[in-house]
């Protein structure tokens, strides 16, 4: 069995006086692909971006919890020590590749920046190796190009190379294919998965798409309104969902053979964090809501 490299325990994050995530807990083992799934505004990105300490300061505050990564509590590290981990041991792939890259710096310079920790003679070799793995045949030309000369899919492949170049133990992929065409989505996700597997890096995949999570992840945590409501193996979550929100989320995904009547939209939207209470936060949109849902919330089945 693979060893655990990340353990997030009871993580609660607040912006000002508003708490946006509530006791979020999950573990990731090395080489594993773990998906955080939920709608926009559920706290997936906030929970994930707390790991490499990428939340805005001072507005974001960690209310409680701990993040143990490679046996260190990241929340207790100084910003200097965190710099040694961010980018080097934890890589990030963001949603918009065009915004993740500097438009006035060549691709080569940006890729070399990601391997600045390595001995000089190994840097270019590593970059060429990664470009070849990602299907770029003319590496010389790619290194000289600028972001505007490339398509969205090509740019996302460059960002994946940058994230994996320093051989990180964990890659956080925040909706890596949402901004891309459906046919390019598969190619980019296949590449991300293959590269993580070959480098034995774990992946934290953030997505709102159950199909994507089903195809690529080993385990899934479903988040709603700042809480993890279900957390299990991917096949269990998809074939036997326990929480009404997970069931509702699976019903809204369009798939082959589904009719419009079978595509059941979830009424309303995710509540504003200012309106969060102690009851089940999904009760306003849930078809199975009962009176007791006001007082208790169905905890994650694995807790």
């Amino acid at each position: 069995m693979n060893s655990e490299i990340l353990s997030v325990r009871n993580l609660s994050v607040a912006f000002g006086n508003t708490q946006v995530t509530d006791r979020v807990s999950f573990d990731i083992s090395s080489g594993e692909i773990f998906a955080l799934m939920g709608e926009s505004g559920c706290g997936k990105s906030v929970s994930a971006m707390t790991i490499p300490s990428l939340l805005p300061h001072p507005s974001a505050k960690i209310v409680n919890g701990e993040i143990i990564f490679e046996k260190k509590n990241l929340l207790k590290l100084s910003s200097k020590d965190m710099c040694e981990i961010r980018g080097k041991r934890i890589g990030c792939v963001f949603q918009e590749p065009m915004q993740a890259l500097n438009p006035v710096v060549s691709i080569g310079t940006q890729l070399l920046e990601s391997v600045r920790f390595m001995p000089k003679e190994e840097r270019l070799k590593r970059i060429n190796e990664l470009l070849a793995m990602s299907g770029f045949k003319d590496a010389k030309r790619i290194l000289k190009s600028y972001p505007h000369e490339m398509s969205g899919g090509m740019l996302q492949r460059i960002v994946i190379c940058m994230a994996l170049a320093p051989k990180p133990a964990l890659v956080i992929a925040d909706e890596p294919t949402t901004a891309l065409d459906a046919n390019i989505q598969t190619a980019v996700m296949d590449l991300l998965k293959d590269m993580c597997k070959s480098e034995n890096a774990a992946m934290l995949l953030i997505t709102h798409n159950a199909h994507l999570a089903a195809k690529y992840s080993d385990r899934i945590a479903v988040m709603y309104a700042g809480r993890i409501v279900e957390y299990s193996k991917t096949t269990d979550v998809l074939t036997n969902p326990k929480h009404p929100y997970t069931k509702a989320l699976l019903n809204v995904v369009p798939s082959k053979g589904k009719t419009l009547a079978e595509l059941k939209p979830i009424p309303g939207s995710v509540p504003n964090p200012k309106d969060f209470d102690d009851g089940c936060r999904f009760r306003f949109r849930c078809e199975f809501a009962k009176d007791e849902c006001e007082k208790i919330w169905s905890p994650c089945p694995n807790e």
Partner: protein
Amino acid sequence: MNEILNIQNLSVTFHSKGGTVYALKNICFSLNEGDILALAGESGSGKSTIANALVGLVPWECGGTYRLFGEDINPYQKKSFSIVRSKMQMAFQDPYSSLNPRNTVSEIVATPLLAKGISKSEAAKKAKRMLDLIGLSNADTNKFPHAFSGGQRQRIGLARALVLEPKILICDEITSALDVSVQAQILHLLNDLRRELNLSLIFISHDIAVMEIIANKILGLQNGEIVHSRLLA
């Protein structure tokens, strides 16, 4: 079924310093009343160029013919498209950049009516009715776009397109920037509006699963040409 739109030999070419780009090559298709025609293809295949050509936002190459509700439209005359736009409107992909951030929602939805010379009070009344139809409350009409979520903004974009009571609505990737749950809400709203307002739709997307759910005919595009045509049950 009545044929309401017939396009023959639609070609669009863009000329630049770098050379000539043949964006569309001899595109032919028709649309029947009540139909939902999906245009599928990768980015750059020409889907949005077809939409833009239909409403006169890009120039046609010689040789194309355009028939709308039995009337011949001259696509080489800018004036002809004012008739087209009273019957055909467009909703756009990005709900964040397609609404003027400095106008209130009721002003945004009333703008096409004012441009048509309808009085302010009448435009405001019609805009309110349309916002009600797409599910926005009265209290929301004086808010600005930033106060709304992506799905709500897309509803506002639909209200603006539908306020002129068009018969054909072009939806250019209107669900691509949305969450799956909001996407399902918009697809249902679109289907309800179609029935209520007797609309025909041209639905542009790159997601085959979404198109198979909503459309009854799919045209596949590649490099500016129709390479595939399929009727759905």
